[in-house]
């Protein structure tokens, strides 16, 4: 059996991990069962008949529905809809962000540049007809939040926590079992940390994938999407509310709901991987898993608070690309990101940048670990 398999076995036999996963799943299922809406279910079903592209054809098909409360509301909400992205400009968002944050110099220039680029994205979404898609009509904001904020958010928070704990547990296992000296004196020696890293990454990502898969499956079983999978998330019914203003939900690239879900899952996996790498570096310096976890909590707390207190804006905007900020801004992924970020595609830049930085820190920590005296 390879060393990685042995390390995976240790992780999987950790009773607390199994307990955490079961508890998380119970919580998630309890939460998603509360997110029901019979009108949203009606829209999902109706979209199979009407399609998701609003317009005359859509209205004709909607007119065929038997009269009823939901059918009447549905027709009222979808008929004669104006395209919110027609002639839409993004400059006012930049103005408000600059004014709110008191930006100047480079940060002001970058913020305005971001929204100039975003103007092109808005035009593309409008030209592609994304804004004139159904999604969940007037239920869209609620449904979008239910899926991408809560149903996806719970497994992400649990995933990053468990991924960090798994990595720390794996690295701290020999210290807890008092087998460090014996293990590090074998041929593999301290290079076992590489095997533990691989096992921790596999276990951490798998646990997140399990949590997300079960939670989303239960959610979509209870709340069928019908034809709305094909609707654009940049539907005119969807919107963003943040510290700047309420505005249309516009993504840099065209995503239907299914594509946006997959893209969000990929970013989530990247974020979970970031926390695994973070825990790897901490675990190489701190042999006690619990102290290591406390350090990660403090470190992320500092990263969260720092941008609010930094007098200089650019370092603050760099920190908002960090993994904890990415998690907190998950409902804005693939959009402009509001006033907290200064670069387009902040989620991609953030994940790739964080992985690069954390890999470098991990390599440095591993090099130090190789030459560290193991006194006790």
């Amino acid at each position, binding site marked *: *059996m*390879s*060393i990685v398999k*042995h390390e995976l076995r*240790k992780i999987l*036999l950790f009773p607390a991990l199994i307990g955490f996963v079961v508890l998380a799943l119970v919580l998630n299922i309890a939460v998603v069962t509360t997110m029901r809406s019979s009108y949203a279910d009606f829209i999902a079903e109706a979209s199979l008949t009407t399609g998701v592209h609003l317009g005359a054809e859509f209205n004709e098909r909607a007119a065929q529905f038997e009269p009823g409360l939901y059918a009447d509301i549905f027709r009222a909400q979808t008929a004669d809809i104006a395209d919110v992205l027609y002639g839409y400009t993004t400059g006012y968002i930049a103005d408000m962000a600059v004014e709110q944050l008191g930006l100047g110099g480079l940060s002001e220039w970058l913020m305005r540049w971001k929204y100039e680029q975003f103007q092109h994205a808005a035009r593309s979404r409008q030209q592609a007809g994304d804004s004139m898609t159904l999604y969940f009509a007037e239920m869209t904001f609620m449904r979008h939040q239910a899926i991408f904020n809560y149903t996806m958010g719970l497994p992400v928070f649990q995933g990053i926590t468990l991924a960090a704990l798994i990595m720390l547990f794996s690295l701290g296992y*020999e210290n807890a*079992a*008092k*087998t*460090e*000296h*014996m*293990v*590090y*004196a*074998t*041929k*593999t*020696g301290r*290079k*076992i940390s590489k095997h533990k890293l691989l096992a921790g990454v596999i276990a951490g990502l798998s646990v997140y994938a399990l949590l997300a898969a079960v939670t989303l499956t239960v959610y979509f079983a209870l709340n069928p999407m019908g034809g709305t999978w094909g609707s654009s998330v940049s539907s005119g019914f969807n919107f963003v509310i943040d510290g700047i203003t309420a505005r249309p939900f516009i993504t840099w690239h065209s995503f239907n709901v299914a594509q946006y879900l997959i893209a969000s899952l990929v970013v989530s996996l990247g974020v979970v991987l970031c926390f695994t790498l973070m825990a790897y570096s901490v675990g190489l310096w701190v042999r006690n898993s619990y102290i290591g976890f406390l350090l990660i909590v403090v470190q992320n707390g500092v990263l969260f608070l720092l941008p609010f207190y930094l007098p200089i804006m650019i370092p603050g905007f760099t920190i908002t690309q960090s993994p904890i900020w990415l998690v907190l801004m998950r409902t804005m992924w693939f959009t402009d990101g509001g006033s907290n970020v200064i670069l387009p595609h902040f989620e991609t830049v953030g994940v790739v940048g964080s992985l690069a930085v954390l890999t470098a820190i991990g390599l440095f920590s591993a090099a130090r670990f190789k*030459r560290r*005296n*193991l*006194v006790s």
Partner: protein
Amino acid sequence: MLIVDNVTKKFGNFTALEDISLEFQNGVYGLLAPNGAGKTTLIKMLTTLIFPTKGQILYDGVEITQLDEAYRDMLGYLPQDFGYYRNYSPMQFLSYIAALKGIDGNTAKQKALQLLEIVALTDVKDKKMRKFSGGMIQRVGIAQAMLNDPKILILDEPTAGLDPKERVRFRNLIADLAEDRTVIFSTHIVSDIESIAHRVIMFKDHKLLCCDSPDALRGDRFNNLEEVFMHIYDEDGVIVELP
């Protein structure tokens, strides 16, 4: 040949070992000194767990940190306070250590069975170790140290937890093993090494006091090593007089 060349180890301002020079060839080397004298510090340096502050440790003329895994591949080590995985059976545990030692699965299984036979644990090879006695755990520890048929076997207080019968059995095993390898055996129990050690190493004030055969240490004045030890160290382990 393993050579400790003018090695000093400091922890901050505390000097744990100062200017130690030793040569190890095949045979049993007994590290005999009171607790805190520096035995474990030397062993940790020989097992690459800690690194000398000054000096170097060489194997066949190459520094052991340069040899890295090639050196540790020749090493078998039983640490003091041997830790183990409570939910593993001896077979599972030896399988894991074998993987760390780079031994392939089939060879590892055969070797583990053979060693468990030697340390008389065949009957409990698949039982969880959580209910094992201290002596049984120590025997698992000895088996894991022998898995890779090491050229250098380092045993830090290996007889702790063994009953008198097991200690005799263990001493005989070590004597057999030492024919074609270096065995470094740290203990503060003189009788453990009296009959099997080719050389006895003692420390004084964290410096090397002697490295000589038991016969030479006994000389004409003492009947056994115990008397030598008692003569050298007082109750607190402080040097009283040299033999």
